[in-house]
Structure formats: structure tokens, C-alpha cells
């Protein structure tokens, strides 16, 4: 069976039609994208907006327009698969009902063929690797699920292209909260008027303390009536870093400048490359769960790229097909290596298979194209003029 189930019209135009020849109120569509309605069957609003429009095309009004658009409040998605819709009254008979996905729903579906869901991976694994006459005679579904999800996490960290990014404006407070599904950052850049990115680097000149105990005159932390340390609301370090003047010498690069001995933290000669830019700096404030930026970035547009673990939402739970085999091998190895009585040579064979499959996946996902490499390598003979 072919893996593509949508028609060209469904995929490219986000459209599907039904010829109505009897009095019906329900229709079942076959989009890959689950339909979402803004109202339920009783007419209560359940979502901000539907992800589709429904038109009733008749001889009098044969093209989709506001005239033959069925009001959103009349339509509800009633099936658990997200493809059965119900009209509060019967569709016009005869007519052609056109379901038109909204543009963002169409966009979200583009490129979906390059991914496979974790659920499909688990089902395929159970079919292909588990059963009578196979190396894994039986395994609990929850075990496979566990290893698949752990694999998803590990793959996300260093192999998959699950880099997410947010476009943000730095507020006057100079902090932005960590994204909900944040695991680690990849890159942070501010965007100039032409849309070009300028990388913002983390700085080691300052840091955000994780605890702010209030001390007494002897320097001993003080406690409240419950015996817990009293904590300050504000960090003085953070305040100073935030309030520093951009017009004085108190720039990160100045701290190591020999002309100001009171600021010298170490003996330094020449340029410190990590600080040799004017793009600003950021720190990660673990205490507040946020990113803090230097005050020269206030009100600037930034693009924040970060990694998640692929398990945050159902939409995330998919892997590129390039890594499908690696995932099977990962699960097989994980199942066999945690099982009692499997010979060590079998485990090591699967360990090697997993390693090879992961290496292949990494190479594939690096997206290295010969032509592009050639183009880059041409720069090696370029003269650098001073």
C-alpha cells in the first residue's frame, strides 16, 4: 500500500469536496490534518478558530465565497479521528460541499512526508522485530514505548533537526522566560533592519546567582520563623549588570584592559575573541528560569533557537525518515541489552548495528550535498587582503 493517502488537491490546495445527493448532516473527510472546529455540536465555543472553512456550492453559487460559506458556529468536528464534521442542519441537496483548510493548516502539512510518527515506529517495530521465530520473542508494549521515547530524547539532543526557534523582542526588563519545552539553547541572534542575524554570545564576565541569602552583620545567612533562609528579592549583581552604562569603560572587554588595574581580573594581552563583538551578551538565569540580556539589546528583535526533546507535544513526536532505521536499532538494542539471558555477542552485535545506523542517520541529516561542499571549498584559495 502506498504511504501517501491524500490526493494532490488535499495536499497542495487543502481542498476536498463531497457531492450531496441526499439529506445528510455528517460528512467524513480524509485529510491527514485533523480538522479543528471552533464550536461543538451544541454550538458552544471550544476553540478560538476553526482550521477549515466549509462551502456549500450550488448551481446558483458555484464558487466559494462569503455567500455560500457555512457559518463557523454551525459546524462541529464530532469524530475522534478529527475528520467527521456535522452541520447543525442538513446540507443543501443537491450541492457540492467544499472543505477548504486554512492557509496555516495547509502550511503545517507541507513536508510531513519526510517524517514518521513515534507511534508508527513502535507499531512497525513490533511487527518487524518481535514475535515467533524472531530474536525478540515477546516484549511489553510499554517497554518499547519507553525505549522509543528515550531514543527520541537522545536523538533530539545530538542528531535530529528538532531545533525550534522563537522570534522575540527584548523587553525593558532585559529578560525573557525560557520556552516551555526548552532543553538547551542552540543560538541567540539579534536581527537588524535588513533581517540579517547577528549572533549574541553568552558572557562569562557576569553570572546570575541561584540563591540570594540575606546576611547579618557577621555574614551569616538569616532565617525566618520557619527556619528557612531569608532570600533577597533582587540580585545586586544582576542589577549592576543591567544598569551599567554603555558609555563608560565598564564594558565586558574592558575588564581585562591593562589601563585600569582596579578592573584587571587577569593579565591579558591582545584581543579576547569571545568578547570581541558589539552584539551584546546574554546569561541564563537559573533562579528565574529566564534569559537575561545586556542592556544594549533592549527593544531589539531577536531569534532564539533552542533544542527540545521531541516529547513535549504530540506534534513533536515524529522523527525524520532518515533516522527511522536508527530508531529501530536503538529500540532493538535497548530491549535486548536490558533482557535477562541474551548472549553478550548478540547484544554487542546490536550495539554495533545501532551505532552504524545512528552514524548513517547523522550523515544523512547533516544534509551534506556535494555541489554545496564544492562551492564552499572554492573559498580556500581566496586571497585575504589586509
Amino acid at each position, binding site marked *: 500500500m502506498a504511504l501517501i493517502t491524500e490526493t494532490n488537491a488535499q495536499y497542495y490546495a487543502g481542498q476536498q469536496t463531497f457531492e450531496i445527493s441526499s439529506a445528510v*448532516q455528517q460528512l467524513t473527510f480524509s485529510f491527514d490534518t485533523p480538522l479543528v472546529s471552533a464550536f461543538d*455540536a451544541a454550538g458552544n465555543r471550544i476553540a478560538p478558530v476553526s482550521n477549515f472553512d466549509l462551502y456549500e456550492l450550488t448551481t446558483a453559487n458555484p464558487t466559494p465565497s462569503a455567500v455560500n460559506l457555512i457559518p463557523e458556529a454551525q459546524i462541529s468536528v*464530532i469524530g475522534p479521528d478529527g475528520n467527521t464534521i456535522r452541520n447543525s442542519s442538513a446540507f443543501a441537496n443537491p450541492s457540492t460541499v467544499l472543505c477548504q483548510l486554512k492557509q496555516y493548516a495547509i502550511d503545517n502539512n507541507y513536508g510531513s512526508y519526510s517524517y514518521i510518527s513515534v507511534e508508527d515506529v513502535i507499531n512497525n517495530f513490533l511487527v518487524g522485530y518481535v514475535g*515467533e521465530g524472531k530474536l525478540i520473542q515477546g516484549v*511489553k508494549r510499554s517497554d518499547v514505548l519507553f525505549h522509543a521515547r528515550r531514543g527520541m530524547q537522545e536523538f533530539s539532543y545530538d542528531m535530529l533537526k528538532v531545533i525550534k526557534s522563537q522570534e522575540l523582542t527584548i523587553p525593558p526588563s532585559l529578560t525573557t522566560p525560557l520556552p516551555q519545552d526548552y532543553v538547551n539553547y542552540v543560538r541567540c541572534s539579534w536581527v537588524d533592519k535588513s533581517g540579517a542575524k547577528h549572533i549574541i554570545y553568552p558572557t562569562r564576565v557576569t553570572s546570575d546567582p541561584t540563591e540570594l541569602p540575606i546576611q547579618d552583620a557577621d555574614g551569616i545567612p538569616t532565617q525566618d520563623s520557619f527556619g528557612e533562609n531569608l532570600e533577597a528579592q533582587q540580585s545586586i549583581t544582576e542589577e549592576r549588570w543591567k544598569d551599567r552604562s554603555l558609555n563608560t569603560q565598564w564594558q565586558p572587554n574592558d575588564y581585562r584592559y591593562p589601563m585600569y588595574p582596579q578592573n584587571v581580573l587577569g593579565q591579558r594581552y591582545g584581543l579576547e575573541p569571545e568578547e570581541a563583538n558589539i552584539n551584546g551578551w546574554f546569561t541564563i538565569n537559573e533562579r528565574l528560569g529566564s534569559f537575561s540580556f545586556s542592556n544594549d539589546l533592549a527593544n531589539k528583535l531577536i531569534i532564539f533557537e533552542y533544542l527540545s526533546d521531541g516529547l513535549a507535544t504530540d506534534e513533536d513526536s515524529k522523527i525524520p525518515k532518515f533516522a527511522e532505521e536508527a530508531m529501530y536499532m536503538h529500540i532493538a538494542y535497548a530491549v535486548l541489552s536490558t533482557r535477562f539471558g541474551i548472549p553478550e555477542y548478540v547484544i554487542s552485535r546490536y550495539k554495533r548495528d545501532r551505532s552504524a545506523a545512528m552514524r548513517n542517520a547523522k550523515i544523512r541529516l547533516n544534509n551534506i550535498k556535494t555541489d554545496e561542499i564544492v562551492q564552499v571549498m572554492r573559498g580556500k584559495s581566496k586571497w585575504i587582503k589586509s
Partner: protein
Amino acid sequence: MAINVNTVYKTVLLVLNKEQRGYMTPDEFNKISNQVQREIFERYFEDLNQQSRQPQNDIDYADRLELTEEKLQEFKTSSLPAYDKNNDNFTIPSDLYKLGNVSYRQVNYFNDGAGSTGFVYSTQYKELQRVNRHDFNLIRRSKLVQPSKNYGIFLYEGDKIKVFPVIATQDEQTPIELDYLKKPIEPRWGYVLGGIGQFLYDATTYNTSSLILSQVLTLNTNTTTGLTDGTYTINITSDVADPVFTSGSSTGGSVTVTVASNTVTSVTVASVGSGFAVGDTITINAASATFPGGAGTGTATIVLTANNLMSASAQGSTDFMLHNSEQSEVILNILLYAGVIIRDPQAVQTALAQVQKDESNEKQ
């Protein structure tokens, strides 16, 4: 394909009667048959276990695992169990012997607030994982594998199935499907007595809710008059306008009504039907416009008792549910028990030797 019970009984009698060893009554045969069927059926599970640990071949009819599966196919079935809303669990079917796969499909209930309600089912069944209480407690604590719509689990305790995550509850819905093995139905060699008191095989399918063929039913009340004398065979229906109707939910069945001196004098079962229950009232409606020979007045009633149902008689037969290939095994095993009954050590030893030979051949 089931094994015909009459074939087995005749063969057993043939072997036993050789050299006048003895005789086995139908009642003895039925009891032993049930025991033998159970023994053979139980053995399948051990066979499956043993064979699944050995490499099999792909040659047609020689794959032992496949052969055992084929023997079990007669018992395999599936059903949508009833949902107990109050306790949020599912009641297993009464004929369940061993539970197999349990799957679940999502269902959405809709109510438009204007009188239209309904259920919309997902087209996809998701397999539910069976867990014991220990695993259940562990799985619930792990965020990575905790039960979800796509990866549900179930507990099977106290003859009830409890599904996690808790699924939407509506009275009518039956969103889980059970695959299971049915209990083997007890074989039964049914008979009617012949003219000289001999047992004659009754090939009618045994049904506990059927009437007894040729039984004369006792009239509880009789006010019929004005009927034309004669003997009439009339179908039993559920329509009160018909000549013979029942208060129950039976289907089929007919009675022979004898009318003498313009009133009903006797009612005899002409065909056994099914779905009759103790307490059902069969009414002979003389006033029915379609009464054969012309309508009269009044009614005659019969209230069914346990003695009127087939379970109170020796009538009706049930074949062995076992696969046809087990016929010789069944006969040998019955002979083994028969040898004990008639106290013939030679019969026991012969049958036992043959059974052991077959078994060792099967498991080599």
C-alpha cells in the same frame, strides 16, 4: 469443522462391543466426552508454548505451531463487552475461557442540545496492554509510559476489565473489543426412545431454550369453544392476533393442537424452536380470525416449566467443538475411560498405548 458426536459414539460402541466387552450408556458417553474434550483442549496451550520455542518449517500442513493454531480457530472469537457505567469497567462475556487481545477505539459522543445525539467511532483500534497490579502501579508513576489514548493499559481482575486512561463514559458505548477463546461446549449425544425402548440418535441441535419434540404440553387454563374438530399444526408467534402466540421472546417452534368436541383437548410440540424460558405463557387463541378450521371463542394457556425445555430431556445433540483431525484422539481417549468403566484392563492398556504413541510422535 467439528467432530460429529454420533460418529464417535458409534465407533466407541463398535470397539467396546467387540467380543462383548461391555456397553456404554449415552449418559456415560456424554460425561466422558466432555472430560476428554476438555483434556485435549487444555493440552493445546502447552503445545503452543512448547512449539513456539522450537524452530518451525514453512512446509504446508507441517508447521506444528500453525496446526495447533488451526485446531484452536474453532474457539476463537471476539466481542464488544458491556460497559458498567457505575463501576467504570467492562463485563467479560459469559463464554470466555481465555482472554486474548484487547483493543480500544476512541468514541466521541455528541449532543446538539436540540434532540440529536449520537456516537462517532474512530476507525482505528489501538491495542491495550494487559498489566498486573504491580506493573500498573509502576507504569502510572512513569511519565514516559503512563497510559494515554494511544497507549492504553487494562487490568483484568474479578472477571472485570478496567481500562486506563479512563475513557469517556456513556451507557451505550462499547469501545473495547475482546479477542478471546470460548469455553468448549459440552458434547452431547441426544436421543429419543424407539419403539422397543432403544436409543435413537436425535440430530436436532441441542438448545436449552428449545421445547421438547412431541411432548404433550399441560393446559393450565382452557375456555375455548366453537372450534372445528381436527388436528392443526400452528406456528408459535409473538402476535396476539395469531392462533398461537407466546408472551416470551422465542423464535420458531410450532405446536399440534387437537380439537375435539369444539374445544382444545391437547397441545403437542411439533417443532422445538428456541428462546423459550420458564414462565413463558403460550396461548391458544381460539378467537383468532386465522385459526385453522374457523375461529371460535376463548383461550387455552400453557405456562412453561423447566420440564418443558430441552434441558429436561435427553433430546438434542451437540458435536465436539474440536478440530476434525482430533477424531481418533477423541475416540481413543474415550475408550481409555470406557475401559475403566467396564473394568477391562486390556482395553485401557491398548488405548493408553495408542494415545502415548500418538503424543510422542506429535512432540518429537
